């Protein structure tokens, strides 16, 4: 009996210590950040209720959320979101495929690097809104134009990161593969591609944000539906709550997409985190 009490005592004390430590640590977790967002929203509500800004352009957050919910259940928001998501993902995946393909080629074959590096450096710094008018001239204002815009803009981060990834593949891995008779395209697919995947994922995450931006911009300039169109036309029609609801939707979309991306990345690159930890 006494033995049990004795052996339990430290465990109880430890768990108590753990509990107090974890409640102390609450201030060091993300909870504090979420609470801060809550605080800002409450301040927004109070500011709007007291008409600190013109009520016409600065509605209460509660009213915005109510409008947002109305738009959700009426299906109106989804109807605008679906074409946006289609354009964005179509463009994004085309851009990623091109970026990985050209990046691998540039990293792997010196000729393609010499051929394509200068033009990449010339095109890359152009902000995508700048060539939007040109695209409208050539591709019109339909989905093709937007998908092209999104693909073009999201290609560059993937391309540059893929290229750096290929250049930094461990030469010992390449030599190992060569001693097993693996070369050419086999080497590219079996060794170079997986070995540079951590870099490719970095590029893909940057491109995801780029794709979202270009999607909204292209829809604001030339579209008859989509979330970007919705936000701008709500503003022009003085439906300010709708406008804010649209922006809120984009915030949620961006957050969810990033979370999803990290989830996939953590699965696919689990080996990379384990490996780099081992090597210190």
């Amino acid at each position, binding site marked *: 009996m006494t033995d049990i009490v004795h052996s339990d005592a430290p465990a109880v004390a430890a768990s108590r210590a753990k509990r107090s430590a974890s409640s102390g640590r609450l201030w060091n977790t993300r909870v504090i950040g979420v609470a801060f967002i809550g605080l800002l929203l409450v301040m927004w509500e109070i500011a709007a209720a007291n008409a600190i800004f013109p009520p016409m352009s600065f509605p209460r957050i509660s009213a915005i959320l109510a409008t947002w919910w109305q738009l959700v259940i009426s299906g109106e928001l989804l109807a605008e979101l679906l074409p946006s998501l289609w354009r964005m993902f179509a463009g994004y995946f085309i851009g990623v495929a091109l970026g990985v393909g050209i990046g691998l080629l540039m990293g792997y074959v010196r000729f393609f690097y010499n051929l394509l590096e200068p033009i990449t450096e010339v095109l890359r710094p152009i902000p995508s809104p700048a060539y939007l008018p040109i695209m409208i001239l050539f591709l019109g204002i339909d989905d093709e134009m937007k998908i092209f815009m999104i693909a073009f803009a999201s290609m560059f981060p993937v391309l540059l990161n893929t290229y750096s990834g290929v250049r930094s593949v*461990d030469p*010992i*891995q390449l*030599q*190992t593969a*060569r*001693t*097993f*008779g*693996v*070369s050419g395209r*086999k080497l590219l697919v*079996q*060794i170079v591609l*997986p*070995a540079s*995947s951590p870099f490719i994922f970095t590029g893909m995450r940057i491109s995801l944000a780029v794709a979202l931006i270009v999607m909204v911009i292209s829809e604001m300039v030339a579209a008859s539906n989509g979330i970007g169109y919705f936000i701008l036309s709500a503003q022009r029609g003085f439906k300010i709550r709708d406008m804010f609801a649209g922006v809120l939707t984009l915030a949620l979309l961006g957050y969810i997409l990033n979370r999803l991306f990290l989830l996939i990345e953590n699965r696919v690159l689990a*080996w*990379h985190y*384990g*490996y780099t*930890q*081992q*090597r210190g």
Partner: protein
Amino acid sequence: MPPSGRAVLRVCNLHKSYAAAGGATVALNGIDLEIEPGSFVSIIGPSGCGKSTLLQTVAGLVTPSSGDVFFGTTRVQEPPRDVVYVFQQYTRSLFPWKTVERNVAFGLENKGTISRHEIAARTREMIGLVKLTGFERHYPWQLSGGMQQRVAIARALACRPAVLLMDEPFSAVDALTRAGLQELLRSLWRELGLTVVFVTHDVDEGVYLSSRVVALTRAPGTIAIDIPIELPASRDQIATRALPAYLDYRARLLAQLFADDGLKSAEAA
């Protein structure tokens, strides 16, 4: 000149120099070497003497400045099938995105003529031979250094190569692990009838493992001495290392290396 005799590997008047600041660095300066099938040849020498360069040239990973390497009757230009190479840096040589099983199967999967079933069976067999059964689904980086080098050996041997080239394969592990790996390698060599060319800077390791030891001089590398090791085939980490013959081989090689280094003359030793 075409190869003659029964050598499996033949190195003829091999020279290799690298471009360096202010001229060329000569790594190998006229190496002639014939490796008999079934032999275990260690190449020893001071660091920077070009012994790794020699091995990489034999493997077809480095192009010689002049001279030739023959594997059987063919001149080596690309890494030949039936010759595999085990690197010192196992953490960098194993593919970290592949499990132990997939790493070991890598060479077999790229041979092209072997069925899935056969690949699985041979992979299992090799993992068993290096005593890693139960770790098939682990990733290399989850294993200790000695275990990782065993994975690399299993991967190399799974292809049933005629020649195994090893570049200081055990120099990055602790002494006890090294002894274990030496025993494993000796027994695999004898069981599988391999030809092994083993580069090391450790005289003891060279004498203990080999049927022949070749010592290179300090760069530019040439062959200093080439001696057959006539110790009993069945060796023991403690008993063999205490044999007068073992100590004699060891003394001769060390004297050579020291003389080359200007530490002590060969006569004085």
